């Protein structure tokens, strides 16, 4: 994208590789669990924006040096995928490293954020959009981009292969970088978690049904991205706490003791909007993903999030939002064991998409994105999106930069974006 004076907005791009400072050793491997393999076609793209006060005096070498210490704890993210004889992918921890991208931006941080408001796709320039493949041997799983703005502000772009862990794990991963940069020592690398769900699986009968929350695609072979029928576009809007409480009251009625959480209300409203604007039959099923606090151990990266399916047997467009919200809250069925069974049956060789197989709502409110502190200051703003999303679209609810505020990001087919924006503006009464 070129600005009016013919210089690209983001320029001076330099690539290098950073890895663990310690030798991991010969023949160390990491086996992703069945749940991990189910998520392999998705990628998280997060951008952390820092004001110049937070990064004053910091240079790129100041950031690169501690990374070598940081990655000692996460050496499997520096490995590369190989296939076992059975064809099942595993990670060879060969210290190949994380790709590191340095860039400069001609705009100041504030100017850039203004530009992003009009054109959300600009954010793509601050984070890599690489996927795993077509050569597994040489595809990095994590890419970090540091972009310096004209005012001295900085953005850190994380490109994260979902096979390594969910967004909560990715947030923990980034936060520990902040800790290492502050000179804190990380706890010893723990044994990487095996999903407790997969441990309980017994060989299931061959005619088990496929989970409803995933869609089989492919085979994609070694190029881990599924093709879409329509081009997907992302847009987001911020919500202040005032807007949130207005909306909450509107949907759930009086503020009482048995209040439905904001996320479920949001799901209900957006479900209705999507049902309204979409051509063809309305979506009767949605996938909900949330944090599972029991499944996460500190410092360990895993795909432990809760994935559940909600089925409605009534018309969505005519439903009461409160009823729909209650349905989402109470009738969500945990699909994780079904997903794991399905992957187990195929010995880890199937290709699934989870996000976007149905209209998917992702609750990231509990992700500690603002925990990445540089010079004890948290980011001015954090934005996350997902790549490899299916045609039914994804809605992300992220924590906002200020207390009480939130960010809603939607990834939808391009042709539905304008209508969605119009409808959502009406719902949330935002300009």
């Amino acid at each position: 994208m070129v600005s009016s004076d013919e210089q690209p907005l983001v320029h001076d791009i330099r690539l290098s590789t950073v890895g663990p400072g310690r030798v991991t050793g010969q023949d160390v491997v990491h086996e992703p669990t069945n749940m991990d393999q189910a998520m392999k076609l998705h990628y998280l793209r997060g951008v952390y924006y820092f004001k110049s006060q937070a990064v004053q005096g910091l240079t790129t070498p100041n950031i690169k040096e501690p990374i070598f210490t940081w990655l000692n704890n996460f050496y499997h993210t520096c490995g590369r995928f190989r296939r076992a004889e059975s064809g099942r992918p595993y990670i060879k921890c060969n210290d190949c490293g994380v790709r590191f991208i340095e860039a400069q931006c001609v705009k100041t941080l504030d100017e850039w954020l203004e530009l992003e408001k009009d054109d959300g796709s600009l954010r793509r320039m601050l984070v890599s959009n690489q996927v795993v493949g077509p050569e597994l041997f040489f595809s990095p799983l994590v890419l970090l981009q540091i972009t310096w703005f004209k005012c001295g502000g900085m953005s850190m772009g994380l490109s994260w292969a979902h096979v390594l862990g969910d967004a909560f794990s990715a947030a923990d991963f980034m936060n520990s970088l902040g800790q290492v940069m502050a000179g804190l020592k990380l706890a010893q690398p723990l044994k990487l978690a095996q999903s407790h769900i997969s441990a309980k699986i017994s060989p299931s009968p061959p005619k088990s049904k496929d989970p409803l929350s995933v869609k089989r695609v492919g085979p994609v072979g070694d190029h881990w991205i599924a093709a879409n029928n329509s081009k997907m576009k992302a847009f987001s809007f911020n919500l202040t706490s005032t807007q949130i409480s207005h909306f909450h009251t509107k949907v759930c009625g009086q503020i009482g003791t048995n209040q439905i959480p904001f996320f479920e209300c949001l799901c209900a409203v957006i479900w209705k909007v999507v049902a309204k604007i979409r051509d063809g039959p309305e979506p009767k099923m949605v996938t909900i993903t949330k944090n599972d606090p029991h499944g996460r151990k500190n410092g360990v990266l895993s795909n432990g999030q809760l994935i559940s399916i909600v089925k409605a047997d009534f018309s969505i467009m005519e439903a009461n939002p409160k009823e729909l919200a209650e349905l989402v809250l109470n009738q969500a069925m945990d699909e994780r064991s079904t997903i794991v069974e399905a992957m187990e049956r195929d010995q880890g060789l199937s290709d699934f998409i989870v996000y976007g197989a149905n209209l998917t709502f992702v609750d990231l409110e509990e992700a500690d994105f603002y925990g990445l502190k540089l010079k004890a200051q948290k980011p001015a703003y954090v934005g996350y999106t997902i790549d490899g999303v299916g045609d039914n679209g994804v809605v992300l609810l992220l924590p906002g930069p200020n207390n009480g505020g939130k960010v809603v990001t939607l990834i939808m087919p391009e042709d539905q974006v304008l209508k969605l924006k119009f409808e959502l503006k009406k719902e949330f009464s935002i300009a």
Partner: protein
Amino acid sequence: MPTPTVPEFSKSVKLKYVKLGYQYLVNHILTFLLIPVMLSVALQLVHTSPDDLLALWNSLHFNLVHVACSLFLIVYIATFYFLSRPRTIYLVDYACFKPPCSLRVPFAMCLEHARIILSSQPKSVQFQLRILERSGLGEETALPPAIHYLPPEPNMAAAREEAEMVIFSAMDSLLKKTGLKPKDIDILIVNCSLFSPTPSLSAMVVNKYKLRSNIKSFNLAGMGCSAGLISIDLARDLLQVHPNSNAVIVSTEIITPNCYMGNQRSMLLPNCLFRMGGAAILLSNRWSDKRRAKFRLVHVVRTHKGAEDKAYKCVQQEEDPEGHVGISLSINLMAIAAEALKSNITTIGPLVLPASEQLLFLFALLRRKIFKKKTKAYVPDFKQAFEHFCIHAGGRAVIDELQKNLQLSAEHVEASRMTLHRFGNTSSSSLWYEMSYIEAKGRMKRGDRIWQIAFGSGFKCNSAVWKCNRTIKAPIDDGPWVDCIDRYPVYIPDVVKL
């Protein structure tokens, strides 16, 4: 079948004792000859009476003039002898550059970068992979920051930065270890073969450490991996002329400007083997440094085979057909190296070998020349002349070749192999990493003799012989091996599976 082996075993044991007996006899021949002479003189003295001795003394007709002249002559000869002896050169201490772990280059990263940069030349990538697998390098060797970029950014500013990082780090370490003040440095020699900017690297050191204006500074460039010993030789000669002085030598190789971006096979090898490294050494001829010095320089022998065209052209820096500059190694490098080594050994042998080995060599030589027998040339047993060997870690092939030619055991070449594994080929400074390894292992005892051998473009083979001045106790508290010596020696497989 035990019976055949027992005679063989006893034969070999008998041979060993015969050899030992022969060595003792020949090496201490003077003592053996002197003993009967002294015995006979003593016997004579016992038999003569004191009166006879007095009569003998008077018959010599000594008077005062005779006595005075004789005394004067003796004093004159003694003074002349002591003054004409070469000054003893001491190595006070040395320091090696330890690369930070953020510059390490694991094999997988090397390969991935090669794959990305040379995506249009998969054969070159395969070739480099094969070299890496068999190179004997480990996963902790370091390349300078500019080479970590995709594509590498080998510009002059980056080369200077690397030079500053390596040289200043080694110098700071040396100044701290020896307590030397920069203003006390009399002679400065910097050798770096492939990077020679103006102002020179020695001027860079003078500027950074604010050395004296009458310092004798030298910058040796283009002299290859054996330049470290050439610098030692130069310092030795200068310290003969300048009394009560010291010399600082900085040996390094700057990798940044020499990343080869083409696909000629003969030029790809250095890319895979050369790594960051540097050393700073303090030499002195001062009497006051005798006590604390680690080593004493005994010999430096330089052999230059450049008169032969084949040897001259065997390591050549040139442009490939596409215009990329690289260092081309010829296919007969090992043969030329062996020739150069033979030349060097022929010169150094008589200086260091005990008489027993020299006699054996002479007999073998005579047998070949006079009796025209087609026996193999006798390779003297250098293990009797030296306790430690530091063979330039130029590559696995070089170390293997020398181990075979000189009949060295695995322990003798351990320092070289482990240096190649941990630091790669750091060119002229590799000898100092090897010395540091031996010290870190606690093997350096007072009186031990060390032989450093380096090969370089030209084709040169240079040797230096040191004698250890004081026992160096392990564990040492600084140096490049301090955090990893416990892991060594490691087993290095012939082929590492990537």
